[in-house]
């Protein structure tokens, strides 16, 4: 039963090989979906291209339905999967800073790596900027430490936060995604086309 490596079904040496293979597929999918183009990515914020919204939410819905279904079938133990921890204010403020960085720079870290690989020089500068940002955070860690470690709510899920069964939440998330896809197509038809 999965997850295979934490359960000792595959040895730890496989971890590195799997990491490279998963990365290979990740990079290929992102690049082939057009995520190596900052102008395509930024389209989601101006309504001329909704690829980010569609790829991102399709992936989220497919993965959450798949993982919970595999748990139901007994193929994977969902309680063993790593749940990203919730530090409330760090998530809000960190996310807000990332949002400004996204619309200013036109990439997020994963997509900038794809653009680096195909030679976009703006992405090289962007990755350098990310490293400067990490450096600033680390050197000024004392300033951010309270925010970084504060308001810790545990490795909680929406099931814990709302006290609603997972299947209703997943159904709700899926509905929201479908409505977002529908609305995004209407918006895009009304917005002046941008050629890039």
């Amino acid at each position: 039963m999965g997850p295979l490596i934490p359960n000792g079904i595959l040895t730890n040496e496989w971890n590195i090989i799997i990491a490279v293979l998963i990365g290979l597929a990740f990079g290929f999918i992102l690049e082939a979906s057009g995520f190596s183009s900052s102008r395509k990515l930024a389209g989601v914020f101006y309504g001329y291209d909704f690829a980010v919204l569609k790829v991102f939410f399709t992936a989220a819905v497919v993965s959450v339905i798949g993982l919970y279904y595999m748990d139901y079938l007994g193929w994977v133990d969902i309680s063993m999967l790593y749940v990203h921890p919730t530090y409330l204010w760090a998530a809000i403020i960190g996310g807000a800073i990332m949002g400004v960085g996204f619309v200013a720079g036109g990439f997020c870290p994963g997509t900038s790596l794809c653009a680096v690989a195909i030679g976009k020089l703006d992405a090289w500068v962007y990755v350098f900027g990310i490293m400067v940002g990490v450096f600033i955070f680390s050197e000024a860690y004392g300033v951010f430490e309270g925010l970084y470690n504060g308001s810790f709510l545990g490795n909680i899920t929406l099931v814990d936060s709302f006290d609603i069964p997972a299947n209703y939440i997943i159904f709700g998330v899926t509905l929201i995604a479908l409505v977002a896809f529908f609305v995004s197509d209407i918006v895009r038809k009304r917005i002046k086309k941008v050629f890039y």
Partner: protein
Amino acid sequence: MDKSSENNRHVYWNPYFGGFLLGLLIIFTFYMTGRGLGASGAMKSSVVTLVDKVSHEHTINNAYYSKFVKDDESPMNTWLVFESLGVLAGAFISGSLSGRMGFRVQHSPKITSRRRLVFALFGGILFGLGAQIARGCTSGAALSGMAVLSTGGFITMLAIFGTAYLFAYFFRKNWI
């Protein structure tokens, strides 16, 4: 560049197809490793390694770097670094197959490449800083978090996209 690859350059996959495959990949990643995907982690490891090379004393005395420095192995020896090397290779293969390779600065015709690079640097710095505060970026926190219904993952996703929409007006000249 010949005509057919010129025409192919901007032909991308259907976004629902790309998203579906990405969803399957996230399931596979959790099934194998028990964790999700990531991207900014590799850049953090690179910074820790560079600073460690310059001054080991500094890294072990800094409360943040010291979390990632071990005595017996390089800080580069992490899952996300190997995954990110794969991302570079995978994107290189896809870009090569579709004729999208080439050194250039991509920007709107209304702005100069210099302006584009300044904003890329500034955006990168903010994203790097924000990703450390939130313990992950769009891949590690938002996407992989949402796959297991992590509350923090959903909050990070809403904060990233919500703020980007709020600030989009101020950066519109760069894009449209």
